[in-house]
């Protein structure tokens, strides 16, 4: 036994020493160097609640559509634009760039024209000031203009005033005058008629025509009128016309909602950007319930659901008579509960604690009640 015990001890010693050296450290797991990815937690609201803005503009704290320049005309307009009527078409028609390219040429011819002419300096002063805003109004559109036009018109008008006039005449011709005429939606027939007439005329007499044209086009702004007068003095007729057409195009599309802030990322329309949260709705419901004197013991009151639809002004007061509808239960119970609900709603006006910045959301509210919960 001693011998075998010794043998066993020796064997164990050998095995343990072998294990200590060969099994000392298991191979480490290969862990790839993975760089941590920055993760932003984005609330669902930013996806589901899109604010009106410009799709191509950079992101800003508050989204806003492209800035407009005209004074506010239409109250509660929904679509951004310089229009007088709140149209749903986007403010920039797709086909415009073609026209604006052509339109840019005469505008540049205007500038060289006053220099050679011996007419009053006043005219010159007026012209640059007013022609300047035009490109601003069109904002994105004018960009294509300078690229194609500058090579052809610029060198020619400067040396001689006369060829400049000729070019100006020539340029409007290819513009395809009827094409812009089709776009201004409000006054379709008038510009079509006027334009063909105007083109031959400006060559001979310039001053009378702009005067005639401006009354025809109701859309033209004061800026446009002044621009016309300057250009007419300078004996450049076509530029006027194109400017007018361009302005018409601006007015033709887009809505009447004005925007003063710089364009920032956003959707075309608000999509539930301001929505009452559940707790705000509950608060509103609570105010009504507090004023609800519950009539207990009505037969058939079980299963009655009361829907109150009311319009609120910005102070939270009810406008007009709230509409109360009850469904389910017996006729008698419905009538009783409807009248008690109406009383409660009227008593709780004006509602408090409604978020002022979400007035769109609660200007018209629908609140549902289950009177059985109150009993």
């Amino acid at each position, binding site marked *: 036994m001693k*011998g*075998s*015990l010794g*043998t*066993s001890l020796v064997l164990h010693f050998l095995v343990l020493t072998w294990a*200590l050296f060969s099994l*000392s450290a298991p191979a480490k797991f290969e862990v790839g160097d993975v760089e941590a990815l920055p993760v932003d937690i984005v609330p669902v609201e930013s996806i589901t609640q899109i604010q009106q803005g410009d799709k191509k503009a950079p992101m800003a704290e508050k989204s806003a559509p492209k800035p407009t320049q005209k004074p506010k005309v239409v109250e509660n307009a929904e679509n951004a634009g310089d229009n007088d009527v709140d149209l749903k078409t986007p403010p920039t028609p797709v086909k415009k760039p073609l026209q604006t390219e052509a339109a840019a040429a005469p505008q540049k011819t205007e500038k060289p024209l006053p220099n050679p002419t011996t007419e009053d300096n006043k005219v010159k002063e007026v012209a640059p000031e007013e022609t300047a805003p035009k490109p601003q109004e069109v904002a994105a559109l004018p960009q294509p203009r300078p690229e194609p036009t500058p090579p052809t018109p610029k060198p020619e008008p400067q040396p001689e005033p006369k060829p400049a006039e000729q070019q100006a005449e020539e340029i409007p011709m290819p513009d395809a005058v009827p094409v812009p005429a089709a776009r201004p939606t409000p006054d379709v027939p008038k510009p079509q008629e006027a334009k063909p007439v105007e083109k031959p005329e400006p060559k001979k007499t310039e001053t009378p025509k702009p005067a005639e044209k401006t009354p025809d086009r109701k859309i033209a702004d004061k800026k446009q009128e002044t621009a016309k007068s300057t250009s007419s003095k300078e004996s450049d007729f076509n530029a006027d016309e194109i400017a007018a057409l361009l302005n018409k195009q601006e007015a033709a599309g887009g809505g009447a909602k004005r925007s003063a802030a710089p364009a920032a990322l956003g959707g075309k329309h608000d999509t539930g950007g301001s929505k009452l949260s559940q707790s705000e709705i509950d608060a509103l419901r609570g105010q009504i319930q507090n004023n609800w004197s519950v009539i207990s013991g009505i037969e058939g009151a079980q299963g009655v659901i009361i829907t109150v639809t009311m319009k609120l002004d910005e102070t939270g007061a009810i406008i007009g008579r709230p509409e109360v509808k009850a469904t389910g239960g017996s006729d008698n119970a419905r009538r009783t509960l409807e009248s008690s609900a109406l009383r409660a709603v009227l008593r709780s006006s004006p509602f408090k604690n409604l978020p002022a910045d979400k007035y769109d959301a609660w200007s018209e509210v629908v609140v549902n009640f289950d009177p059985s919960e109150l009993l």
Partner: protein
Amino acid sequence: MEHADLAAAASSVSLLSLFMQAGLIVKLVMIGLIGASVWTWAIVIDKYMSFTKAKRQFDQFEQVFWSGQSLEELYRTLAERQNSGLAAIFVAAMREWKKSFERGARSPIGLQMRIDRAMDVTISRESETYEARLGSLATIGSAGPFIGLFGTVVGIMTSFQAIAGSKSTNLAVVAPGIAEALLATAIGLVAAIPAVMAYNKFMADAGKLGARMEGFADEFSAILSRQIDEKLQPRQAAQ
């Protein structure tokens, strides 16, 4: 610096460092289990050698016994030695036989019974030596895993307490303690598995040897009873 740290971290998972990191109870459990393993293998080696030796002796004795050699002669040669197994049974039976005839046996039945007793006692004594220490193999085989598990539970408990103290649940912090604790179970299994296997094998071998001894005893008892009849009948006839 970083390499050194990594090396230190790697070495902290080696068996020796795992053992050194362990707490006192876990260390004791591990040492006890290693001791049990040593004891198990000592028994295994001892039993293996003694069983093979016993089998060889059985074969040799049977060869000699059935070779037609005179039993008296065989007894005389064997009686001087220290015998085991079949030889011991043969010697015990022959001794009883001799004693009975030297003093003049009266009844053949009594003589037969005495010889059988002597052989039974020798068989039980011999089987006892064969089965000796197999019980400790069984104990190690059944209790080893539990002792290891105990060490693991205690080790994990202490390592969780350490984690609670360090206030970090990083796997690198948690892993060494758990690995160290699991080492106890591993050692327990290492000790227990061979113990169970050896126990089963040696119990079967001991059973076989016992059966062989029983068989030889019956055969030898039959031979002796024939001899008794032959030797006692002339006396009875003479009377």
